[in-house]
């Protein structure tokens, strides 16, 4: 029994669209300010 190929864009997605692991973690885990700057700021606070 043959079934015709079907384009993936024609197939349904879930109503609850789930992003990839880490896709929502930008606010907390994105790389940004250098460790040099952060280390200096933390040191200033702790030793203040």
């Amino acid at each position, binding site marked *: *029994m*043959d*079934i*015709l*190929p*079907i*384009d*993936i864009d*024609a*197939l*349904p*997605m*879930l*109503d*609850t*669209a*789930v*992003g*990839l*692991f*880490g*896709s*929502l*973690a930008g*606010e*907390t*885990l*994105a*790389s*940004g*300010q*250098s*460790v*040099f*700057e*952060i*280390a*200096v*700021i*933390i*040191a200033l*606070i*702790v030793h203040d």
Partner: protein
Amino acid sequence: MSGSAAACAARHDHYPAGDAPRRARIRAAVADLDARWRRADAATGGLGAAIDAAADDAPEQAVARFLPWLADLRWLHRRLGDALALLAADPFARPPLRAVGGGDGSAGGVILAERGAVRLTLHIRPASAPPPTHALFVPGRSAIRVLAAGGASLCLHEVTVGAAEEAGGFTAARASACRSLVPRPLCDGEMLHLDTARQSYHLDGARGDVLLLELAVQPAARLPVRSYDLASRRLAGVGAAQQGASLRAMTLTLLRHLGRADAAPLFVAETQKGDFAARWHAMRELVALDPAAAHPHLAAMAAADPHAEVRAAAAATLALLKSPSPSGEGL
């Protein structure tokens, strides 16, 4: 030229790019400190050894195991002292700590230890950091020691999560709205304990920089990570809480792009795993790759998958496969 632009330029101008011996000394000093910290972590009573011992603990048990590291901070002072000594010896040395966040004056920090589901992070939130727009709920537990409260108010947010949602039945349509508690002053030295699947927070109105030491234990979970819009309190986004399933999903997409129909058994195996989104992703990819191979598994999924949205998507796809093509071909 503005002051900040001048400072930026000056820092790059002074980097000893042409001084190979000095750069070698910096690398050696950083490597030496990294090795010293690793040895201390791996030793009996060390942080790494404790993380390894907690590998099979439930999140709340693991958090309890690490409370001494949050209560007695002499180890942290020693570690920061080591980092400061490294910087004092050469300001272009970078302590072997991974930085997170902190771009554009927002909250950031350094990861002090991370292995498996356990992460110990020193967070800094500058007084000038912009307020967050979203609250993130991540399955697991955390304990947070407030090292410097900065005069900030603590705004706690809560969502309800049912047992069925935790077991893999989460749907966006039935997700609880987010409730916010009355803000209260954050206190120096206090300890916060959060069930991070259900509780999140943000800080508001800080007059000074805020410094937090956070231990988070957030293992892979069937309940997704959820992001809520703080203005509307409504669910704004959902992300996988299982790194392995997420990576395998990307790999299946790659195999489908490569036309690897011989890998169909791998797709079928993934359609029977615990993560509902990963199950449907695998089936969708398999149908596009090899609809004939997918058909019996698709029928089984439409009849018996434990997640209602997956059953509905499978049934709709079955109907699509059975519908005659314009030329009269098809199933």
